[in-house]
């Protein structure tokens, strides 16, 4: 079983639309949405939730006003300035480090577990899916990403699947690190813009840092052919695999509005053909046999 994680560095390059299109071509595959902070894949693949689980991770401090003597030791110790002047805790600023809880001389700080999201096991028209929702303004997104990937792998192993297709988060920080570690490959979807190139280089650096093989696809490549050439040159000199580019096509957005992949929208176009070729090259690189996975 292989796991492919689609990432981008820069947000909004089209990774989720492309991943949904891949899903419609793959068989014996499970989907995993690891963009738990702003998950969007469900808007296209419309999962029917089979199981719902709460995600608790870490703790939050709560001061008991009856036991608090307002000595101020916690205020001095707190690195997050999370303790307000009236000795209540700002839950958004609280890092959950427990220093106030452990060191309060009155034992006045409780430290309950924090329920910070939910994760789901669902069915879609393309295969099973593991996805999640992090509570707004919550931390521990990296841990929730690790959890959904673990569950997706379990699903794949018990179900005899060939592929886990994982939608990764933007950026290069904790959720991205959690999303790519141990994957068989990442596909970096970029765009031919100055920002796209800049962000591609950073996220490719991250993949290299964690020793995950990286492929590149330039989405909307015809928007700026000169930038596309620059990306291709960069990829060649950095040992990154060019898996195929996709032209600018407003049909991607039109399909998204209808909750469909670009293939389900019907009709063949230069973009659909490009996505098909891209998927074939990705499968070949992953060592998946084209007939069984790529129709």
């Amino acid at each position, binding site marked *: 079983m292989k796991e492919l994680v689609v990432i981008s*560095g820069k*947000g*909004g390059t089209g990774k989720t639309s492309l991943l949904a299109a891949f899903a419609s071509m793959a068989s014996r595959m499970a989907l995993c949405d690891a963009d738990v902070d*702003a998950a969007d894949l469900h808007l296209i693949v419309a999962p029917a939730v089979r199981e719902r689980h709460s995600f608790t991770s870490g703790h939050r401090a709560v001061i008991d006003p009856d036991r608090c003597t307002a000595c101020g030791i916690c205020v001095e110790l707190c690195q997050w300035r999370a303790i307000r002047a009236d000795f209540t805790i700002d839950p958004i600023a609280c890092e959950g480090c427990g*220093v106030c809880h*452990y060191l309060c001389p009155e034992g006045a700080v409780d430290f309950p577990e924090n329920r910070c999201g939910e994760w789901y096991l669902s069915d879609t028209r393309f295969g099973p899916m593991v996805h999640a929702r992090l509570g707004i303004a919550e931390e521990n997104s990296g841990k929730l990403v690790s959890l959904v990937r673990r569950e997706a792998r379990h699903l794949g192993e018990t179900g005899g699947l060939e592929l886990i297709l994982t939608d990764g*988060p933007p950026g*290069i920080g904790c959720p991205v690190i959690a999303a790519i570690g141990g994957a068989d490959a990442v596909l970096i979807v970029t765009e*031919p813009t100055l920002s796209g190139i800049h962000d591609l280089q950073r996220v490719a650096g991250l993949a290299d840092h964690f020793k995950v093989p990286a492929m590149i696809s330039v989405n909307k490549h015809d928007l700026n052919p000169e930038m596309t050439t620059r990306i291709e040159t960069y990829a060649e000199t950095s040992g990154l695999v060019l898996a195929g580019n996709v032209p600018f096509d407003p049909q991607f957005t039109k399909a998204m*509005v209808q909750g469909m992949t670009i293939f389900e929208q019907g009709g063949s176009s230069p973009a659909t053909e490009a996505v098909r070729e891209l998927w074939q090259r990705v499968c070949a690189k992953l060592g998946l046999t084209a007939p069984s996975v790529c129709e």
Partner: protein
Amino acid sequence: MIISVASGKGGTGKTMVATNLALALDRKVQLLDCDVEEPNAHLFVQAAFDHRETVTTPVPKIDQRRCTQCGECEQICQFKAIAVLPDTDALTFPELCHSCGGCWTVCPENAISLDQRELGVIETGHRNGIFFAHGRLRIGEAMAPPLIRAVRATALPDRPTIIDAPPGTSCPVIAAMKDTDVVLLVTEPTPFGLHDLQLAVGAVRILDIPCALVINRQGAGDDRVLQYALQEKIPVLMEIPFDRRFAEIYSRGEMLIEAMPVWAPRFRALYRQIETLVVYRKAAAR
């Protein structure tokens, strides 16, 4: 006044709005790029940087001669950054440390001193009287919020501030939006744009900050974002049409207000509207 420009969904045009807003104004402002994972504003602003500094965070270093392996540091650490195992020296995992200070406060032997882990760098500079600062998270570093706070700490006290926030709704964007006077949310009229906008509005409301909307690529999708804004009484202050020319201008790293100067007065008007919104909100709060 501090304006944060955020979005929920990535790639909706935050940086385009933040940079054009800052450079369109005919007064001294400052622009802080707080998307430290993927900073892009400098590509457009092209500030001349005159200062660069490495930002670090304290992590524990254990003096093994003093350590008695009592295990108090391991017990207080919520992030599994210290392991005290039998028959071996106590271990630290600096990449996991949140720098809470718990271990070096509780150690009864004073065996823990401070080492430093590099978070990234911050750079500051100027262009046309605008003060510009950004942070670049070290590749491999997981924690963006402390570097975001370091970027915000470079702000000069005497002038309006525009913050280019990271995407999402979790800790990095909270660090960028917290204690700002208004959040300008940039979205696109698509199901992804709407869904992530709703999450971003949820975050803004938890922080109790007024917000307003810029709809980018208007015409590319449907009108559900507009309907949502009406229903939630979120003012729509600017609509930027869906036009391939705009995408091409952006792709070359050019400023919209320079490539299409008709947009400069529109961004100045946007700023005045934001100002009015903040003044009204403050008056209403009194």
